[in-house]
């Protein structure tokens, strides 16, 4: 699966979709594949604040634990609660149904384009 051109990316293997002042965050297919089948997700609570590059959640597979870094300062306005019952959705549809949180941001940091992210992961 290619990294969608309309999304932005971080070096922590997250994707960011910006709509107005709200950003939807997920992890990339590359990250989901590297983790293996995801069995547990711990997302930040709605209303909590996030700080750029601070850990705000965890994603666990049978084999490893991935930390979720907040890509930006802001406030969590929505979390994908359906993932607690079916965390494998992140593997099946990382850029769609497997989204993690929506953050109302105050400022966007520098993000990678899809082609820059492709180059970063060596594709």
């Amino acid at each position, binding site marked *: 699966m290619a990294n969608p051109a309309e999304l932005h990316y971080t070096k922590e293997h997250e994707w960011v979709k910006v709509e107005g002042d709200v950003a939807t965050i997920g992890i990339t297919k590359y990250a989901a594949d590297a983790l293996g089948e995801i*069995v*547990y997700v711990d997302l930040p609570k709605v209303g909590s604040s996030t700080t750029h590059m601070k850990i705000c959640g965890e994603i666990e597979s049978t*084999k490893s634990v991935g930390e979720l870094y907040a890509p930006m300062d802001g406030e969590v306005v929505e979390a994908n609660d359906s993932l607690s019952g079916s965390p494998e959705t992140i593997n099946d549809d990382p850029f769609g149904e497997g989204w993690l949180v929506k953050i109302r941001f105050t400022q966007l940091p520098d993000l990678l384009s899809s082609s820059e992210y492709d180059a970063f992961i060596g594709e």
Partner: protein
Amino acid sequence: MLRTPLFDEHEAMGAAFTDFGGWEMPVRYGSDLDEHHAVRNSAGLFDISHMGEIRVKGEAAELLDYALVSKLSGMKNGKAKYTMICNADGKVIDDLIVYRIEADEYLIVANAGNRHAVLVQLLNAAEHFEVEVTDKSEQWVLLALQGPKATAVLNEFVDIDLDPLPYYSIASGKIGETAVLLARTGYTGEDGFEIFIPDTEALKIFRAIAVRDEVRVCGLAARDTLRLEAGMPLYGHELTLDVNPFEANLGRVVALDKDDFVGKVALTELQTQKTWKLYGLKGEGKRAARAEYEIYLPGGENPIGQVTSGALSPTLGYPVAMAFLDGSLELAIGSKLEADVRGTRIDYEVVELPFYRR
């Protein structure tokens, strides 16, 4: 990194790879959970050619009685035995499966990362015996076909009837024109076989088994969760050079009544002093305590030990762990404990091992 003769095939099948004991091995082909469940419910095929195979011929029984902790001379032809090789301090160099092929010929399967350490230990001991120790690891591919349907599937390929072969036995047979060894052993907690195949013939046999509807090709991720559920130790986790067999609940394989063997003096002392004891633990919720996470008594400030292996059990649906805990505590089944899972205390309790029994 080392690669098995089937590496290109795994790559063509889309496997993800991991470094294991110096080998670039398939960790999963698709979903590791699906691979796990396939072994529990049908059959899974693993390339485990990274394992070391060492042949001992001549005064083999005498050598092994001296170099290993069990009494191997008492085995019958065609039988397998789980055992260990310890150093003079009684610490575990590796855990092994030993097969007696003939009265003067034994086959030893060692862990990938320990193959050379085992070989060196055996060669040193071999100076005292008329015996030939040969590393066959490069000449053989080792496949494991594991699961409730493994025997029925394999029976269609081989020229002998596998049904009557007991667990922990080995037999010679043929797959097509290829002479193979078929061992009813494994590392998954299911029925199944480990198949020793000359490397040049392995690809066509691997493909023929892999295409069967009942069979799913599986990587090391599934192998690890399967063996953990079955309460089987993994060297580097439950067994190390810091651990003696008694601490790992494996004192039963140590034959202290043998005349003389490497580690006997130390092991005789160690059998009564358990600094650590390996326990099975069951957790609440879905967050698993993993290797090196610390375990506490409820509300306790100081850790009483560490997890050696832990995962959310795919079969059971709750977290399971093996952990070395303070041997002086003598914790009963049902004892309540806590694991520090990255800063959060999660409730665990002591349970019987294995977690899963077929």
